[in-house]
Structure formats: structure tokens, C-alpha cells
């Protein structure tokens, strides 16, 4: 069987590569209307016909073959190295037809590398609306390449693209203009003598970008440096001159092949929707107000609107539990099923409405193109704190989850800005913190309407917690800015894409998918830990459990019934394995107001903070007041009494101390692993873990001491 041919999708950021990838392969690669959505490669299979498959590779966007950030580097490492496992047999250059000239620059470079290429003109609908008429047949002739017009979003034009790809794959024709600007023959000869017969333009790419290409050893890099010096070759000058030269040629081509109807008839270009919307969104004052308003509505939705479906789920789970307790005989198994498993699962399910709202807003920001505007209006502010306008994307999207957020820092060009962004991103409150916030706020903040009777006080506290995370991220970034050294200057030269209407199918898919991931991924961990914890809390070393129950019976001879069994359960928990763990760390967390039960929760949520609520539910169901009526986590925690004061355990001081602790603490293995992967060093995950834990401990201490 012949090898499956490989095609790489290459193009400017936001040209529609991932959309085309999804159309061709039927997969669901993430898309979004701002530069820098795709950060890693992804392959899929394009079924051209029966028994005719092609492997398609989606990649981050690039503006030229000379990379300026890590996501761009990835693309050049593939395109520049024929020995790379992902090196494609041919390339589809996806060009935004409404911005043709700039998109063709990259096309002409890729083609000169000697790779067979097809040109896909995407966003034909946008170009049409802006009044462009593109003669693609003429364009194909002028550039000697197969051209296909497509609309990647709607999936129009795939047949034409198929034809063009098949033709190009068959004749393997790489129309290659040679070098854009001549260099001395000896220079090329020397590179070829050292590295083998290669296309001259590719050999220049090697010469100029070897530092960023992983294919070269240290010695080879030194060799290339030596050749460069010997021939007095100046890469910067060459690249600039090359770019100008290419644009000169492309301007002529575009002039011959594209007509702009608007330009012909109107002296003043027509105002587009994007111009009008930007008047509002980029307004010096209104822009900020609008952004704040969006954030505020988002939190209102997450806290206030989401409570209705949440209460329903909560009641449903409690009902199911009561019903099971009614029909099943009293046994260890019944305890595990109802108080361990179902309570644990209920603890996950209840947050679906909030997660759904969160992802709805994030996905709307990404889909419409508003995200780039936020980067634009925030850049100045962020820069003061050692960050970058582009840091807004990771910071905002880590409201959902820090893992993809940290990956999205790859498009930040300056290493220092990127590193700081990675280190502070987990301080933003992610969706796994939501359950903790929700339960604790409901316990200690009264459910009163404030602020014109419109905003709810609990929602407001939640908003403050998110803001706190954000400001702590800024503050930490500022400290790191003073410590870390910058190697290069950061820049903010970025395209502002036109606004696009969100596709509701796409938005709802994003929501659905993320809810699914949350329920199954978080659910797996929570259920697993709930079961382990249930076991650890039900058994103790040696005879300690039986001793505990005997002890209580002797100490309280006149107690009986429910009161007695409650006391016994409490004593048993304290003497169980879990109880011992909790007791062990109690001295360390006493100053924060926590007892050994909370200590157990801190231990279990060490690797994944979403486990907190499930742990609480297990602990209080085993060791607290047994109250079969309405046994929700909230009610159980509310019923908990502080043995020292005799007052409710969860008062304002403890509630806020816990809230602050969970807001700042680094309790997520996946995030640390991602930081390790993105920085390629253990130093940064360790720093991240260290400073966040210290921050959490100190802040919780201060809050508790101030409030109690």
C-alpha cells in the first residue's frame, strides 16, 4: 500500500486554517476570531474518495517563514526540515481573500521553498462584502499555481480544492522562482557542500534561522555562523529587502487580478460594521466601561442566573439519595453508594450551569473578534505590570481552565512577558474553584439583594474574588518584572480582525464539549478520591474504630438513639486513617482557622482543587449530624458546630480565610505539568507552586486573624 500523502495547512493567523481543517476532516479543532488560537499541530484524515485518504496537518498561523514567537517556530521547524516526521508532501496555503496582498507574501515564500503548493482563497464572502472582485483564474496563471476559492466556515468550495490538490499531488509541481534576491553562488555552494543538495532558498532559510531550528547540532550552527561571517551576509538586511521585493511583485499581481468596486465609485471608503463597532469598543472611556459591563454580566450570570438550574440539580441529587436510603437496607454498601458516590457525583453535576455560562461568554468573546479589542485596550495597563496586551487571552481564558490558557501564551513574542504570564495565569480563578466559592459564599454571605435590588450580594462577593485573583496576578507579575531579566524588547504589532457574527452551533458545541470534559475528567478524579476517602474515613488503624465507639458509650451512659450514633460517628472519624492525616497537619493550619476536618480536604485537594467539595460532603456525612432530610453539602456544612466556641463552624472569618486560600493556592497537578512542558524546566513549576502556596497561606492567615 502506498504511503498516505501529507498536506500541511499554512497561512496567516486567522485566515481560516482551522476552519478549513474541520471542514476537510470532520474534526473539531478549536477556531476563533483572533490571531493566535491554534498553538499546536493537529492531524486529521481527509477522505477524498473511497480508498483515497490524505493526512491533513493544521498548524499555528505565520506571517512569513521567519518566525518571531514559539508557535511560529513550530511551523518553520516542520516546513524547513525535510527529515521532520511531519514534513508535508504538499502545502495548502490558506489566504484571507479580503486581505490578499499580505497573505500572498507567505504564499510566495512557501512556494519558493520548493514544496508543491495549492492556494486556497478563503473568506470569499468577506471579500465580496467589502467590494472585492477576484479573478482567480488570472491569479492562478500569474502565480503558476492551482487556486481554489473556498468558504471554510460554510464548507463551500471543497470540490474545487479537492481537484486542485489531486492535480498538484500528481505532478508534484513546485513552481519555484529561485531566489527572490540574488546572493553569491559561492555562498549557496558552501551551504550545499556542508548540508547536501538543497533548494537555494531553503539553504538561505537554514543559514538565517538555524538558531530557531531544532534540526541543527551545535557544531552545524557554528558552521553556518562561520559561513555567514565569511560571506558578509546580513540576514536582517536580506529579509527586509526580500520582503520589499516580493511585495513589489505581488502589488502588481494583485492590481491585475483584483478590482475593488468600492474604491472605484466612492472617494471615501464606505464605513463597515467593524468601523462602527470599533468606535464604541475602542473608545478611550466607553471601551473600558463596555468591557467592565461584559465582565459584570458574566459574573451575574454565573452566580445569579445559574442558581435556578443549580438548585434543581441539588434537590434532585438529594431526592435520589433519600430515596435510595429508603429502599436499600442499612449497610456499608449503602453508605458508600449514597454518601460517597452519589454525593460526589452530585457535587460535580451541580456546577454544570455555571460552567456552561462561563464557556458561553468566553466563546462569544473569541468568536466575535472582541478578544483582540480587549488586548488592544488592555496593553498599556498590562505593560506596567510586566505583561503584554496578549497576556489578556491567557488571563481571561484561565477563568475557564489554566491549562489551555498557559498554552496560549506561545504567541507572546517576548520571552520575559511570556514567562511572567505563565507564572501568574493560575492566580486567575478557574472553573474548578467555582464550586468551592459557591458553597462557601452561600454559607457565610447573606442572600440579600443589594445595589438597586438588581445585583445580588453573593454574586458581588464572587465578582470580588475573581477581581482579587486578577489583581494578585498583576501584583505578582509586577514583582517578577523587577526580578526577571529581559533579553529582548517586547512588541505589540498585531492585526485587529474584522468582527464576525458568532455561529451558535459552534458556541453550543464549545459549551457542550467543555461541560462534558468537566463532568468526566473532574468527575473521574472526584469519584475516585471520594471512594478512597470514604474508605480511609471509615476504617482506622488496629482496633481504633471499635475502641472509639466503646469509649463514647462508656463516657455517655445516658445517651441513646440518634444523639449517641452521631457522637460515635464523630469519634470514629477522628480516629480513622483520614482523621489521623487531618490531625497531623492541624497544627500548621490552625492559625488560618482550620481544623483537622478541613485539613483532610486540603490534603485531598492538593493535586486537584475540585475535590474539595466532594471531600467536605464525605467527611461531614460520615462524621457529622446524621440528618437524612435534605442532606446537601451546604446544609451539612451549615450544621457543623465549632467544638471550642459552640457556635457554627463556618463563620465569616473561616469562610473568607478558606475562600482566600483557595483563590491563591496552587492545587492543580495539570497546571504544574503544563508549566513544565511550556518552559521546559522544573524551575518554573517549582517557583509557581512555591510562591502561590506562600501567598495563599499568608493571605488566609491575615484574613482569619483580622476577621476573628
Amino acid at each position: 500500500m502506498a504511503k498516505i500523502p501529507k498536506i500541511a495547512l499554512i497561512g496567516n493567523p486567522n485566515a481560516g486554517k482551522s476552519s478549513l481543517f474541520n471542514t476537510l476532516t470532520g474534526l473539531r479543532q478549536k477556531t476563533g476570531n483572533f490571531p493566535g488560537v491554534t498553538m499546536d499541530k493537529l492531524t486529521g484524515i481527509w477522505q477524498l474518495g473511497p480508498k483515497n485518504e490524505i493526512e491533513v496537518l493544521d498548524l499555528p498561523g505565520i506571517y512569513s517563514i521567519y518566525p518571531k514567537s514559539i508557535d511560529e517556530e513550530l511551523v518553520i521547524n516542520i516546513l524547513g526540515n525535510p527529515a521532520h516526521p511531519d514534513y508535508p508532501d504538499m502545502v495548502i496555503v490558506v489566504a484571507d481573500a479580503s486581505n490578499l496582498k499580505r497573505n500572498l507574501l507567505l504564499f510566495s515564500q512557501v512556494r519558493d521553498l520548493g514544496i508543491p503548493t495549492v492556494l486556497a482563497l478563503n473568506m470569499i464572502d468577506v471579500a465580496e462584502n467589502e467590494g472585492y472582485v477576484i479573478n482567480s483564474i488570472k491569479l492562478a496563471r500569474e502565480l503558476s499555481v492551482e487556486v481554489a476559492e473556498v468558504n471554510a466556515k460554510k464548507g463551500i468550495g471543497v470540490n474545487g480544492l479537492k481537484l486542485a490538490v489531486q492535480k498538484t499531488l500528481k505532478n508534484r509541481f513546485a513552481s519555484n522562482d529561485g531566489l527572490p534576491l540574488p546572493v553569491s553562488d559561492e555562498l549557496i555552494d558552501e551551504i550545499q557542500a556542508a548540508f547536501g543538495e538543497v533548494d537555494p532558498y531553503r539553504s538561505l532559510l537554514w543559514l538565517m534561522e538555524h538558531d530557531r531550528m531544532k534540526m541543527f547540532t551545535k557544531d552545524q550552527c557554528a558552521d553556518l555562523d562561520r559561513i555567514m561571517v565569511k560571506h558578509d551576509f546580513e540576514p536582517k538586511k536580506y529579509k527586509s529587502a526580500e520582503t520589499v521585493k516580493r511585495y513589489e511583485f505581488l502589488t502588481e499581481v494583485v492590481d491585475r487580478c483584483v478590482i475593488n468596486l468600492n474604491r472605484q465609485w466612492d472617494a471615501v471608503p464606505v464605513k463597515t460594521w467593524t468601523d462602527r463597532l470599533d468606535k464604541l469598543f475602542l473608545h478611550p472611556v466607553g471601551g473600558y466601561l463596555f468591557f467592565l459591563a461584559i465582565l459584570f454580566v458574566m459574573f451575574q450570570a454565573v452566580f445569579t442566573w445559574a442558581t435556578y438550574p443549580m438548585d434543581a440539580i441539588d434537590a434532585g441529587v438529594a431526592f435520589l439519595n433519600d430515596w435510595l436510603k429508603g429502599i436499600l437496607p442499612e449497610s456499608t454498601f449503602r453508605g458508600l453508594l449514597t454518601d460517597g458516590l452519589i454525593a460526589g457525583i452530585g457535587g460535580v453535576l451541580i456546577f454544570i450551569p455555571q460552567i456552561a455560562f462561563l464557556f458561553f461568554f468566553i466563546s462569544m468573546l473569541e468568536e466575535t473578534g472582541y478578544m483582540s479589542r480587549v488586548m488592544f485596550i488592555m496593553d498599556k495597563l498590562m505593560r506596567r505590570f510586566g505583561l503584554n496586551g496578549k497576556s489578556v487571552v491567557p488571563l481571561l481564558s484561565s477563568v475557564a481552565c489554566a491549562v489551555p490558557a498557559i498554552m496560549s501564551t506561545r504567541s507572546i513574542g517576548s520571552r520575559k512577558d511570556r514567562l511572567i504570564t505563565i507564572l501568574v495565569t493560575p492566580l486567575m480563578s478557574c472553573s474548578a474553584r467555582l464550586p468551592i466559592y459557591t458553597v462557601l459564599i452561600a454559607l457565610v454571605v447573606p442572600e440579600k439583594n443589594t445595589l438597586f435590588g438588581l445585583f445580588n450580594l453573593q454574586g458581588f462577593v464572587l465578582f470580588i474574588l475573581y477581581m482579587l485573583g486578577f489583581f494578585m496576578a498583576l501584583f505578582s507579575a509586577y514583582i517578577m518584572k523587577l526580578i526577571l531579566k529581559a533579553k529582548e524588547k517586547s512588541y505589540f504589532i498585531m492585526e485587529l480582525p474584522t468582527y464576525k457574527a458568532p455561529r451558535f452551533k459552534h458556541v453550543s458545541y464549545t459549551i457542550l464539549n467543555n461541560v462534558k470534559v468537566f463532568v468526566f475528567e473532574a468527575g473521574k478524579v472526584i469519584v475516585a478520591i471520594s471512594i478512597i476517602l470514604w474508605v480511609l474515613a471509615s476504617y482506622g488503624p488496629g482496633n481504633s474504630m471499635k475502641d472509639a465507639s466503646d469509649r463514647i458509650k462508656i463516657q455517655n451512659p445516658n445517651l441513646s438513639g440518634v444523639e449517641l450514633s452521631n457522637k460515635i460517628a464523630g469519634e470514629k472519624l477522628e480516629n480513622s486513617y483520614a482523621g489521623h492525616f487531618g490531625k497531623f497537619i492541624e497544627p500548621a493550619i490552625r492559625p488560618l482557622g482550620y481544623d483537622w476536618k478541613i485539613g483532610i480536604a486540603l490534603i485531598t485537594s492538593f493535586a486537584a482543587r475540585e475535590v474539595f467539595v466532594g471531600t467536605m460532603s464525605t467527611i461531614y456525612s460520615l462524621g457529622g449530624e446524621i440528618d437524612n432530610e435534605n442532606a446537601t453539602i451546604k446544609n451539612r456544612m451549615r450544621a457543623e458546630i465549632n467544638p471550642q466556641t459552640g457556635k457554627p463552624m463556618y463563620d465569616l472569618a473561616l469562610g473568607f480565610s478558606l475562600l482566600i486560600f483557595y483563590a491563591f493556592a496552587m492545587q492543580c497537578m495539570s497546571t504544574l505539568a503544563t508549566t513544565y512542558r511550556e518552559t521546559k524546566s522544573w524551575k518554573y513549576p517549582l517557583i509557581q507552586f512555591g510562591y502561590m502556596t506562600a501567598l495563599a497561606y499568608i493571605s488566609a492567615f491575615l484574613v482569619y486573624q483580622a476577621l476573628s
Partner: protein
Amino acid sequence: MRTVADLGIGEHGFISGFTDEKLSLKLLEMGCLPGTEVILTHHAPFGDPIAIKVSGYTLSMRREEAATILINNI
């Protein structure tokens, strides 16, 4: 010498050169070519960064970066 940073909102000029070699490549690649018309369309709050229309699309950059693009008014 006038630069893009000196433009007011709605004003335009034609690019005549660059003062920073490193930035100039990125700017050239983004379509800021000598002889091209640029129009300043937006200031962010506090006047920085700015957005310009160039080669038919909107490009944002910081004021200090804009100050490396020389312009004249013909």
C-alpha cells in the same frame, strides 16, 4: 521627521522609512511598505497603543513602535 506616532485620529500619511531595523522586518511583513498610505483610526485609553489602517486592514501597535515608522504627506 514626522512618524506615525505624530498622527492624530483620522489623519494620514505615506510611509517613507523605518528607524528600527529589528521592528522594520515585522512591519514590512505586516504590509507597512514604503509608499503605502496609513490612516490612524484609534487610540486605546491613555493614548497607547494605536490602531492604523494600512494595506486594507487594521493593525495595532504601541506608540513607541509607531514612532519608528517615518512618514511624509505627499
